[in-house]
Each structure stands twice: as C-alpha cells, then as structure tokens.
C-alpha cells in the first residue's frame, strides 16, 4: 500500500509527476489548473532537482516541452482549454518529430474564453487532431483523482514506448475536487537514461542526431506519414483501455468518460433499482477508441446513450461503433453545467420508452 492522501486532482497530478521522475515541467497559469504549476514550483526542484519553469505563454511552454523532449527528458505541461488551443501547433510538431511527452488538459467550457467550469467540449480537439496534418495523440481520460495521479506515469510510459505525445484529458471538476489518492513510490529520476536518438551532444563515435518534422521531398514525407500511420495502427491494436460495468445482461448502455462516467454510474444504479438493466461503458483511452467493445455490446442491447459535457462529440464515435444496429442518443449539458443523475434518468427513461 502506497502513501494515502486527501488531495485535489490537480495536486495529485503534480505530486504523481514528481514521484514518477519528471525531469521538466513548463507551464503557464490558467484556471482551473493553476495549482499544478503552483504545486510544482513549491515542491518540484526542492525534492528532485527537476526543472520547473513558468513560461511566458502556452506557445512557449509547448515549444520548451519540444526542446526538452528532444533532449531526452521526461517532460510535461498542463493547461486548460484556451491554453491547449494555443499549443496545437506545437503538438503537431511534437507528433511529427515523434517526441514523447505528457500534455494535460483540465477541460473548461468554451468556445472562446468561455468559462472556468468543467466541460468535455475538447473531445474533438483531443482525439481527432487539433493541429495540422495526419497525427494522433494517445488520449487518457481519468474519472477519479486516483486516475489523475496514476495516468501520469502510465502516460509517460506510453509516450516513451511509442515516441508519441500523450494527452491526459481531464476537466475542471476532477482537477478541483478532493479525493483519497494512493501515491506511488518516488522514482529515481537520474536512473532513467536519455534515448539514443536524443540531442544530448554528439560523441565522436556516432553521427549527429537531429529532431525535425520537416521532410521537403514528397516521397520522403509520404514515407514518414506511412510510418506514423503504421505506428498508430500498432497503438490501436495494443493500447485500448475501457471499463465495462454490468454490460453482460444490459438492455441499454450508457457510454461516458471521465466525470460523465461517474454521473452515468449513478444513473445506472438508479435505473437498476427500478428494474431496468442499464450498463456502462467507460472509454479510458479516447484514442485509441474502444470501438470493438461498443460494437460487441451493440449485438445484444436495445440502445445507447452517450453522456457528455458537450453538444455531442463522442457520440459520433459511438455511432461509428454501433453502425446502425440500434438507436444511439446523446445527452449533454454545456457551458460548465453538470447534469444531475436524476435529470439523466428522465432522459434515459424517455428514450427507453420510445425504443421498447
């Protein structure tokens, strides 16, 4: 059993990053995630001599991440929606240059400056590619403070394994809420060696290393793209993570991730108490997406409800998976409003009565 603490999601994330052997963090203040930068400036260097730097913008932050990742460091940045929008160019470069790093989005309501309250309005941006070009981020969606801590090291391990940026897509509620969290042991960050491709200075015995996403000859650029696509297919084959709850006997399934999955879980309990067999599928990786899990369930259920804090984004992937075999509905609140389980129960009952 690791050390138990009562922590905010943002603080648990920061603490987990220190313990996972983070070499560097670059970030810029934005609500509702500023605790990450505050916690790390207070604790990070003092404990592991890691680099913690408040950058002048999110644009600078993500490009510092690029430089540090290229130099072989275990590196992270975090922000919230408008700041993540500013990072999209950098993320595209990082994906193109195949650099491992962790980027955390504490999603808030938009569009524009929006609100500081929780939202899942950045699903499209996260999983469909918010920047230019054909690339993918591995996207992890925590639903608890515990997962906000756990997915830090797991995210970095995935990033290193595939030389690919990993995004943790959380939200303002998970970032701000306090829960019990079990923390892992402190890793020795000096034990981790820089990868052989990193720009650490060219010894005589090897050719220079260079980090780039520029391939001006179309024949080369196509080969790089084909290589990336092959990598993405490997990730799709190996790294899908999904939680199924009471789906085996279910007549109806709620699909929800992150905070919405917690509401969906309560909805499921209420419905089951009333004798309606409702199940829950919680995608943990939003890319790669658990299409097969949903498709399999579509063979025996009467319908799906995609529950999201947005106008209906993930529902498109649910429909792709279901492929017309049964009705797929969506329910969501926007602008920082979180629906109550009772509100969703009414929606679900209405939908369920129509497909009976």
């Amino acid at each position: 059993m690791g050390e138990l603490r009562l922590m905010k999601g943002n603080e648990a994330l920061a603490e987990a990053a220190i313990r996972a052997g983070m070499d560097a963090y670059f970030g810029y203040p934005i609500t509702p995630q500023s605790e990450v930068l505050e916690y790390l400036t207070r604790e990070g260097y003092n404990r592991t001599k890691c680099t913690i730097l408040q950058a002048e913008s999110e644009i600078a932050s993500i490009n510092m991440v690029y430089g540090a990742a290229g130099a072989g460091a275990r590196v992270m940045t975090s922000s919230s929606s408008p700041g993540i929008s500013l990072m999209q160019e950098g993320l595209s470069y990082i994906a193109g240059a195949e650099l491992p790093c962790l980027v955390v989005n504490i999603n808030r309501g938009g569009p524009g400056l929006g609100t500081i309250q929780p939202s899942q309005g950045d699903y499209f941006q996260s999983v469909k590619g918010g920047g230019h070009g054909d690339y993918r981020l591995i996207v992890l969606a925590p639903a608890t403070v515990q997962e906000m801590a756990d997915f830090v090291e797991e995210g970095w391990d995935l990033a290193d394994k595939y030389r690919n940026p990993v995004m943790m897509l959380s939200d303002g509620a998970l970032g701000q809420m306090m829960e019990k969290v079990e923390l892992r042991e402190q890793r020795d960050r000096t034990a981790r060696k820089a990868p052989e491709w990193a720009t650490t200075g060219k010894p005589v015995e090897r050719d220079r290393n260079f980090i780039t996403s520029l391939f001006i000859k179309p024949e080369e650029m196509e080969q790089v793209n084909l290589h990336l696509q092959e990598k993405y297919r490997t990730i799709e084959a190996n790294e899908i993570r999904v939680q199924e709850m009471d789906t085996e006997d279910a007549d109806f399934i709620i699909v929800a991730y992150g905070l919405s999955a917690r509401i969906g879980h309560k909805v499921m309990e209420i419905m089951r108490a009333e004798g309606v067999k409702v199940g829950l599928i919680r995608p943990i990786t939003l890319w790669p997406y658990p299409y097969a899990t949903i498709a399999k369930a579509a063979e025996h259920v009467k319908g799906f409800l995609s529950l999201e804090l947005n106008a209906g984004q993930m529902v498109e992937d649910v429909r792709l998976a279901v492929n017309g075999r049964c009705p797929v509905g969506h329910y969501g609140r926007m602008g920082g409003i979180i629906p109550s389980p009772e509100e969703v129960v009414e929606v679900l009952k209405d939908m369920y009565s129509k497909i009976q």
Partner: protein
Amino acid sequence: MENSMHEVEHHYDEMSVVCERPSTLLDARMHYCPGCGHGVAHRILMEAIEELGIQEQTVGVAPVGCSVFAYHYMNVDMQEAAHGRATAVATGIKRCLPDKYVYTYQGDGDLAAIGTGETVHTVNRGENILIVFINNAIYGMTGGQMAPTTLLEQKTSTTPYGRESSFMGNPLKITELLAQLPGAFYVTRQAVNTPVNVRRAKKALLNALKYQKLNKGTCMVEIVSNCPTNWGMKPVEANEWLVENMLPYYPLGDMKVPSKEDIENA
C-alpha cells in the same frame, strides 16, 4: 602514365593544407543562393565550435526560414523548431542539459516578427544560450516579403512601392532593444560582407560561446547579412547596398559587453 601519377602524388605530399572544411561542418552542398551570407555565417560559427573543442557538448536549434536546413550542414546534435520558437526550444534543451552549449540560429522574420515574444522572454530570463541572429531585412525563404527589419523605402514583394512607416511601421532594432534587458550578458552586431568583418564576427562568436560557460546570461550575435536573390542584385552589388543602406541604420559594434569583474568573478 604510372610515372606521372607518382609525380602527382609526390607533388601533393609536399603541399600543406591551408584551408579545409571544419570537422563541425558536414560535406554537403548548401542550398543557399550564390553570394548569400548564410554560408559564411555557418562556417565561422562551426569553426568557432571546432576551435573551442566543444562539438560533442553542443546542441543547436534551427529556425524556419532560409536556414531551416541548417541541421543538414552543421555537424552537431540539432533540433528544428517551429517558426519563431527557437529560443523556447533552446530553453527546454538548456534547462535539461545545463552543462551543454546551446545555440539558436535564426533569421529576422523568425526572431523579430513571429518569435518576438519568445526572444524577449528568453533574454529576459537570461537563458544561458547563444542566439545567432541573421538580419538581411527580408523574408528569403518565402520569396522576398517585408521583414520587421526591412528598411524604410526598401522595396519587397509585399512593399512594392517601398516600406512606408505610417502604414507598415519602422525597421525594428530588436538587438538594441534586447541589449537593454538585465538578462543579456553579451550583445553585439557584426557583419560578414568583408574579410575583416568575417574575422570580427568569428571572434564575437568565439567569445559568446566561451561566455556561455559562465552562466551569466544570454549572448546574442547579430550578423547583418544580405539577400542578393530577393534584393534583386548581384552578390557584389548586394554587399555594396548593405554598406550604403543597412549599416547606417544597423551600425556594427558591441551593444553590451561583460565587465572584467563579470568574467573574473564567474
């Protein structure tokens, strides 16, 4: 025939090498236009790195612009940055590898237009890096558009009637601006239009790299350069135009030099 070959080889044996490619430059054909200052600037930077014996400890950052392919010529570990973000990338590298020598090599559009924010804040933090700034008053790679450093009345493809200050602002003396910041340790403006200036510019690069080990702040070497192709001139004419037009507005010389105490106390 065999005899003559033997004679030739013998002849070579008696010759001594007076000029060769530094080991820090790769044996590659550069894509730069004839007469362009980039080739000379690349060479003196890499000669400085060779002479200091720091090739193994150096990491460079290439920009977006004509020198976007610098990593195909410079034989050190390098990263290619997004447009304008070279000093942010260099910050990330240097903070993680504080014992290495880190430099950026950037043009005027990269450093003084799209990357102004990153440049100012990098120097303001006093990052212990070298910024090599090539100022030729034009966007070369994209075909000769107005740069932040384009002179008044200078014609470019986006100032076809000449740059006019009330409409397009004034040529930005960003190096003077950066020299005001406490984080700047050594700031100088050089040129590579004459042999004397090339030697002076190389000396400045050598000093700037040496200073990096002092961990006292950012070193910046601006090199006033040319662009014969997009200025629409022959190389010799371009260098004459540089002397007559660029140097009066961008005068050569040191803007900030370390004091003796700075160096001795380090």
